[in-house]
C-alpha cells in the first residue's frame, strides 16, 4: 500500500524516523518492506505501531541514504506487516537494545507497560551522540539505562554486560533483545537457559513473504518464522557456533 510521509524526525545525525498512516494492525517486532520507488525495497521494523505508524532508519548505504532525503508529503510503498512479534504481557521484562535495535523494542516496551507489565530497558549505543528514543521511553514511564562503548553516556561497556548486572540483582520473566548479531548471541549465551529469551535478528530480505529462501538461517525463514525467535530454538540448532 502506498502512503504519504506525514512527519520526519531526525533522531541523531544518522537516524531518521518516518511517520505515516498505515491502517493495518501491527504488533511490536514485526517489520515491513519499504520502497520509495527510487532506491531498493528494504526491510524495516515498525518503530511505531499505533495509529500513525513509523519506521526508524539508520543511514548505512545507498538506499537508506536515499530514504533519508524523503520529505513529508512524499510517498512510500509499504508491504507488511510481516513476521513474528515480541511476546507482550503483564509480566516482568528486561529489554536489551544495541544501536537502532531500540527502534523495534520501543513499541514493545510501551505495549508491555500499557498491559500493566514491568520493563527494565537497557539501551546500548556506540557513544552519546547516537542516543535516541530515550525520552520517548521515559515519557512512557519506562526505566531506561544506557550503555556506551566509550562511556560518553551511562555505563561504559557492552550493553550485554549492563544487562548481566541487572539480571544478577533482579528476576525477570522475559528477556527480549534486538541489535547486532554478536550482541544477540551474547544475550543468548548469557540468558537463554535461565529465562525465556526472545531476540530479533536481521537477515537479507528479498521477498519478505517466505518464498525465496534468501533470509533463511538454520532452516527458518527470518521473514516468517522470525524476525523474533525464541533464542533457545536457534541455539538448539547450533546458532551460537555459526
Amino acid at each position, binding site marked *: 500500500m502506498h502512503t504519504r510521509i506525514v512527519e520526519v524526525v531526525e533522531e541523531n545525525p544518522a537516524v531518521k524516523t518516518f511517520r505515516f498512516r498505515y491502517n493495518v494492525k501491527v504488533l511490536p517486532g514485526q517489520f515491513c*518492506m519499504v520502497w520509495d520507488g527510487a532506491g531498493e525495497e528494504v526491510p524495516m521494523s515498525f518503530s511505531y505501531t499505533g495509529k500513525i505508524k513509523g519506521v526508524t532508519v539508520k543511514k548505512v548505504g545507498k538506499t537508506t541514504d536515499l530514504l533519508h532525503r524523503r520529505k513529508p508529503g512524499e510517498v512510500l510503498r509499504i508491504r507488511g506487516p510481516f513476521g513474528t512479534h515480541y511476546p507482550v504481557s503483564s509480566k516482568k521484562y528486561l529489554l536489551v537494545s544495541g544501536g537502532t535495535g531500540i527502534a523495534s523494542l520501543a513499541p514493545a516496551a510501551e505495549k508491555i507497560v500499557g498491559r500493566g507489565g514491568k520493563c527494565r530497558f537497557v539501551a546500548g549505543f556506540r557513544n552519546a551522540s547516537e542516543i535516541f528514543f530515550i525520552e520517548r521511553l521515559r515519557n512512557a514511564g519506562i526505566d531506561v539505562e544506557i550503555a556506551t562503548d566509550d562511556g560518553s553516556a551511562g555505563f561504559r561497556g557492552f550493553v550485554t554486560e549492563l544487562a548481566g548486572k541487572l539480571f544478577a540483582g533482579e528476576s525477570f520473566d522475559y528477556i527480549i533483545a534486538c541489535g547486532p548479531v554478536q550482541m544477540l548471541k551474547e544475550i543468548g549465551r548469557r540468558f537463554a537457559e535461565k529465562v525465556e529469551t526472545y531476540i530479533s535478528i536481521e537477515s537479507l530480505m528479498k*521477498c519478505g513473504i517466505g518464498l525465496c529462501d534468501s533470509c533463511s538461517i538454520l532452516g527458518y525463514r527470518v521473514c516468517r518464522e522470525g524476525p523474533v525467535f525464541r533464542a533457545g530454538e536457534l541455539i538448539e540448532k547450533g546458532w551460537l557456533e555459526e
Partner: protein
Amino acid sequence: MKNPFILASGILDTYAETMLRVAEDAGAVVTKSIGMEERKGYENPVIFEFEHGVLNAMGLPNPGIERFGEEMKKLRGCRAPVIGSIFGKNEKEFAHLAERMEEYGAAAVELNLSCPHASGYGMEVGRDPALVKAIVRAVKEAVQIPVFVKLTPNVSDITVLGMAAEEAGADAVVAINTVRGLRIDLEFKRSVLTAGIGGYSGPGILPIGLRCVFELKKVLRVPIVGCGGITTWENVIEYLMAGASAVEIGTALRNDVRLFKNLGRGVKQYMKRKGYERVEEVVALAHQNR
C-alpha cells in the same frame, strides 16, 4: 518417490536446511537453479504479491555451482530425492553443471530452459527447439542420472519444445515455468519490479499450466511433471487428469511449508472416494472423457 509432490525450483531451496524441512513431506525437492558463477540477482523489489498470484524477477541469484556443493553435501541425508536445477547459456555450460550435480549426488537434473527474466538464460535459450535438443543431448551424454527439462509457456506451441526434449532423450518434462507478466505501480509510474517484466506464478496461472500439460500429454510418451498455480489438492488432481504424473509446487508454499502434507491427505481421500488405488490410475483421465 513416496508421493507425487515435488518442491519447485526457486522456492525455499537455496539453503540445504530449508530444503530439508520441506523435504519431510515431499516426494522430491528441486534445488534453486544453479549456474556457472555466483549471481546476486536483481536489486529489490524482486517480488510483487497480488490477489491472483506473484510476480517475481529475482534474476537467478545463486552461489554458483562450485559453492553449491556445500549445500548438496548437507543434503546427503535428505529424506526425498534431490533434483539439481541448472541454467546455462549453452550445451557446454549445461553439461558441466549437470556433471557437477551428479557428482554432488543429485538424483536427477532439471534443466531450466524457461526462466522468463534473465537475459541470455532460461527461456531465451529454451524457446528454440533446436537449442533445446542440443542441450538435452549434451546433458544426456554427460550424466547417467535422469534429465528433466523444464519448459516455458511463453511460446506459440509448447508441444514443439516438449517433442524436441523427448527426441533428444529427456526422461521427463516439467511444465510450466512462470508466465511473463508485468504490473505497474501507479504512484511510482514504473514496473513493480526492478527488472521490469517478471514471471507470474500462483493460482492465476493454473489454467495455463493445465492447458500446457494437456497439450503435451497428447504428443509425448515421457512422463510430464505438472507445475503452476497449485494451491489445493483439487488442483493436483486436475494436473493428474490433464496428464501429469507428478506435480511441482512453489508459490503456495509461502503460506504453508507443510502444504504437501495437507495436499496429500486431500488427494488420498479423493482417490479413496473414487475407488482409485494408485495415482497412475488418475493420470490423463481427462483425455479419455474427451
